[in-house]
């Protein structure tokens, strides 16, 4: 839709109003998290005061979260796990995607069917066998256990996305490189990959988000406090019996997600561009 000079009324009705509604729906829970993390317990539970405003703000929950729990350690673990499993997923995903997108080989149909099928495998079916496998590999209570298992959820997606992206690279470019004597691998690394940067960014963002969110595998594989990720660590230490440490839980949610959102804001344009290629052509 081209940007036309429309009257402010039209613009209000077609842009700002719906945008405001969407923003409200998306961000109201964050507002709630923010105020909950700043309220004292007395105020949080009080039905006498208006719940949408913080009357006596306190940073106690943030201080407690940072000093009494291993939140920073969990954050570091989460980052480490998310970054490495994202990297693995991108590399393996690209290794699947390129041949499937560009080359003809016997068994290609079978491989693409297998990738589609991995989408359908229900996670609740996998955790018992996977726990057994991880144990046989001696990886219990190591970050490696989740670094290895998360890509199973992420590779199919990355492969699908990158496949679409590889297809957008003009074949002529590759042919020219091959005629100049470049090997297939050189063509891929020097010609194709640099053109697909946005594709990797978008797949990376998606993979990173899912990896830092994951709960079930992290719960099963990671017992020791020092190897926990944010979701599992926060639930283990801040949900005590039937009492939730609301303020600290919400502080953890915000501290864990807002920095990521800020980083994403620099990438979001590429994300959009990357998805475009993957989606439309894939």
């Amino acid at each position, binding site marked *: 839709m081209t940007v036309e000079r429309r009257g402010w009324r039209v613009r209000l009705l077609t842009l700002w109003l719906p945008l405001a509604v969407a923003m409200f729906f998306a961000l109201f829970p964050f507002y709630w998290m923010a105020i909950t993390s700043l309220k004292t317990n007395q105020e949080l539970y009080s039905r006498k005061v208006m719940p949408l405003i913080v009357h006596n703000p306190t940073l106690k929950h943030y201080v407690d979260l940072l000093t009494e729990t291993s939140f920073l350690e969990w954050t570091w673990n989460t980052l480490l796990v998310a970054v490495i499993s994202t990297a693995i997923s991108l590399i393996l995903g690209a290794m699947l995607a390129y041949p499937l997108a560009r080359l003809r080989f016997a068994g290609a149909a079978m491989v693409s069917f*297998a990738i589609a099928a991995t989408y359908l*495998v229900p996670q609740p079916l*996998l955790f018992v066998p996977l726990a057994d496998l991880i144990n046989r590999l001696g990886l219990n209570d190591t970050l490696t256990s989740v670094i290895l298992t998360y890509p199973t959820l992420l590779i199919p997606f990355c492969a699908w996305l990158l496949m679409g992206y590889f297809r957008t690279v003009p074949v002529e470019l590759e042919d020219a490189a091959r005629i100049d004597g470049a090997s297939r691998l050189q063509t891929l690394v020097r010609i194709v990959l640099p053109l697909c940067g946005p594709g990797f960014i978008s797949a990376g963002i998606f993979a990173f988000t899912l990896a830092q969110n994951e709960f079930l595998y992290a719960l099963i594989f990671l017992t020791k406090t020092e190897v926990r990720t944010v979701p599992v660590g926060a639930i283990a230490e801040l949900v005590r019996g039937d009492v939730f440490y609301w303020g600290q839980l*919400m502080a953890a949610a915000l501290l864990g*997600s807002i920095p990521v959102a800020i980083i994403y804001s620099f990438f979001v344009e590429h994300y959009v561009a990357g998805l475009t290629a993957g*989606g439309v052509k894939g």
Partner: protein
Amino acid sequence: MTAVLAPALTRRRPAFSFARWVERESVFSWLMVALPVAFLVALVGYPFFYGIWISLQDRPVAKPGEFVGLANFIRAWDDPVFRQVAVNTLFYTAAATLLKMVGGLGLAVVMNQDFRFKNLIRALLLLPFIVPTVLSTIAWQWILDPAFSVVNWVLKAADIADPGPSWLGNPHLAMFSLIIVNTWRGLPFYAITLLAGLQTISPELYEAATIDGAGRWGRFRYVTLPLLMPIIFIVTMFSVIFTFADFQLIYVLTRGGPANATHVFATYAFDVAMGAGQFGQGAAIALSMVPPLALIILAMAIYMRAPK
């Protein structure tokens, strides 16, 4: 590995060039896909078939299993809760996906304009998708509490109802509330992905449509929608898969209550496998997710790819 192999092979058969062998399309392809395929076979394929094997056994936790054939599946079929779970899951998936699709498309169209703070707003809208689900769901526990919910406050202040709707206590409302929370979490991804699709549509097409006399709706119906179909299909597929297997959100908010009104396959399978320690039954329930999911996706593929 290749470096070791190469000289040995060349020595024996001088005509053979390893470098050229690798350059063969099928060889190069398989060298590329071998590692990821092996990875997926080991960490998805093997556990998957292992899981199928478990589903054919009476396999209590911490005890050896005993082969029982399809008994677990037959038993699930006879279990009224299982049937309710199946209906719940289908409804939950259908409603949440539809909401995300319509809302996401609308939001994408709105965001596909030029406005100030575009990137910031887009990133902020992604927040629900970024924040760890277990933690954001805990915030919803307050938002859906009749004593603190905004809706209830408004109703109460206006003297219409007190305490007003019970968002998680009423079986029908509970399902509705979970669908809303799921939509909240999934919609940003939908919208951003569709926005990406919208940006590829060339403005000339709209101009042409306008010249042909198409209005705002006509342009959407005959230009935007058909061109966006492939990407709508892909995100919908993703949404169906993730919603169908949703676990965290429901487990934190209601754990399937009230009286199983919000129990879905993933939560029920988890409770039976982990809570009751019946791995065989749990695996059978989890495995029952596959055929309906595969069918839905197949049906969608046929419908959306069909020439119109």
